């Protein structure tokens, strides 16, 4: 069973990695919106979303009046 002398420190290292990821996630606001992702899953956009190239836009928006 000496293998646990290797495995446990290894798992601790992994744990530290996970903790670091957690800290990053909280800092960068991953936990700020808990309801949004549920809706996004259902919206099923097939990845159209945003491009800013004129040739990709289906129509034109009429907000640039001024």
């Amino acid at each position, binding site marked *: 069973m000496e293998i646990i002398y290797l495995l446990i420190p290894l798992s601790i290292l992994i744990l530290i990695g996970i903790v670091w990821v957690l800290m990053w996630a909280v800092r960068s606001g991953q936990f700020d919106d808990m309801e949004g992702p549920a809706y996004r899953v259902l919206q099923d956009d097939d990845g159209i979303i945003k491009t800013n190239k004129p040739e990709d836009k289906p129509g034109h928006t*009429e907000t640039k009046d001024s």
Partner: protein
Amino acid sequence: MQNSELSSSCFHCGLPVPDDARFEVVINEKTRPMCCPGCEAVAKAIVDSGNSRFYDMREDKQATAIPLIPEFLQQTAVYDHPDIQKSFVNHNGEVSEASLILEGISCAACIWLNEQHIAQLPGVLSVNINYSNHRATVRWDNDSIKLSEILQAIAAIGYQAHPYSPERQQEVFEAERRTQLKRLGIAGLFGMQVMMIAIALYAGDFSGMELEYESFLNKVSWLLATPIVFYSAVPLFRSAWRDLSQFSVGMDVPVALGITIAYSASIYAIIKGEGYVYFDSVAMFVFLLLGSRYFELIARKKGVEAAEKLMQMQPATATRIVDSEHQVIPVVELNQNDTIMVKAGETLPADGYIVEGGSSVDESLLTGEFDPVTKVVGDKVIAGSVNVESPLIVCVSNVGTETIMAGILRLLDNAQNDKPPITLLADRAARYFVFGVLIIAAAVAMYWSNAAPDFWLPITLSVLVVSCPCALSLATPAAISAASTHLLQIGLLVTRGRAIEALAAADLFAFDKTGTLTKGKPVVDRVENLSSENETQLLQLAAALERYSEHPIAKAIQQNVSMGKIDLTEVVNIPGQGVHAVWQGNQVAIGSRKFIKDLFALDVDDQGANGTEVLLADKSRLLARFTLRDVVRSGAQALLNDLTDKQVDIALLTGDNAASAQKIADELKISKLFTEMSPEDKLKQLQAFQQQGRRVVMVGDGINDAPVLAGADVSIAMGNASELLHLGSDMVLLNENLQSLNRGVKISTKTLKIIRQNITWAIGYNLVALPLAVSGNLSPWMAALGMSLSSLLVVANALRLSPQKTHKLG
């Protein structure tokens, strides 16, 4: 052909389509009717940008767009100004980032639509909208697009964006929440590892484990538990230390004690080389306690967030008039006595009074009442209300934190922190309870260290942790908080938290008559033509005379009379009595019976029982008699019925004469009627009731009945928002709608019920859990679990009092 089969309602906003309207948009290959150019424009904008899926996804009908009139464009241009941007925009070279609050969101589809629409604007780098608080974070390239253009694009699809500059308090809360989450995360992650190792140790305990491995695992547990104790548990220790250093005990003392004992005893066991370690208990305590505290924080803040949103919805710009010139300025630059112009559809940026113009304003933000209120020159208007009909020129009286709305929010805040007697009782009970627990824990430790030395530690830990009185201390504040927010949403402002409880427990409601149970606005009930003249002409004459009077009766008489060609000269208005003038060479007058009698020496028999009388006469004879009555408020009957169902007595205290008061009492079936009372008489009657042991609620007109209100157990004032801050009463009925009061009573009753439920649960749980722990039947992790679940249950129960999500406050 399609118009006849489709119901004639607008596909976009749901309102009926006028018969002659010809607005249509092709959506998803079907032609859909629209009700107006606004809806047509919005629908077209949505379709043209490729987002017509929105109509498949949405759950509700939408608002129409604000037409992009030049003034609106000018207003949005203000947002490009660097000084304005300072407070809510971050610049990083060419990339700018801003937070905006979106108004008009009614479902998830709206958020989707906005994200799609904004993201497609050239120059916008990214946009992300938070589904819970409707906050949009937009990043854009300064050189390609301006912020004002982004705002205009949002308006084009029917939503409004406000810059989000969080109050300092909000920022602090956000930082606090994140730190708590980090601590919770560490406690959870390391705790899981500790639990894993603990399972190995339990197994080893059961079937044997070599000493060296056991020692190794113990030391690893120690290592993993240390961050939990020295990082995650810090708030617990701080709060316990704060209590102890003031020689009192609080909720966190037993838990902090438990953690310390468990951790130290475990270290001691490792050093000595024998005995069990209890790091798993430590991990469970900290994780579960922090978890329940985190959820409580979120839940409590949700209520405050609703109120915060009110403040955020303020306009950022105002149109100031200086020397006849209109300047669009940021609201923060407005000063007292500035003159501003508020157009139809705009929100008032500050409190003030009208100097020119007449319109109606929607004060629903404040009062929950959606019917617009008519305002004329001299009337007060409040920040946050929406000007509905026509432009108003307003002289500013209060800005920013001095506005009535800011005052209301402060009052709300105070009310929520006000501890009703039952809470103070619970607080004190909790303190004694904790003290008792510590003593019991000591006794338990001593007993079990003799009876079963191996187990004295876990049993003591369980005792310390299971009996957390958090439920007791949390029960009432959480309920009061949720209830106050709900009550404000229906138009009942609570200034003292304890009033909610008292309202539910009251057994006598005393009402004032005029202005409380009745609208305070007389209505013409009957017109008697006492002469041979043409009645229509008499009506017009009466109305023409009454134009010169400010009395409410004058307004009543002018109602529904079309203006005829009546020329009056030498008009004299005697306030409170009547008006006389010269018409077609004759002296004519209209006024009270006393007025006509004094002027013309004419009289008629008294029919005061039917209501107030107004006589129209000329020098020689009486021409007409108007009988007016005061109209009972629409919600009054329902309110009284519901109160009677609750076994609550009703009394009517009025200064009015017996006959007309009797009419109202009969109409509303009130048996306890007291008429012709002065304010002092009313107060005496109230005190008489109280001496009989009744708990009295007094509902009255705040200004006139102030002393009477002060004497009641609960005072409710009919207030309109402009004067409410001077009313010292416990509750203010902002929209003067008795139906709201009815709902308010129901909510208060529910609140009291829930508070009692919570306290019963808290006590019951402790009574069951403590003996279990003392007798050694609870392991520490079970104790921790039970304690956390108990607190969460109490908070969840209190949240049942929260308002439902609505579009205004939700």
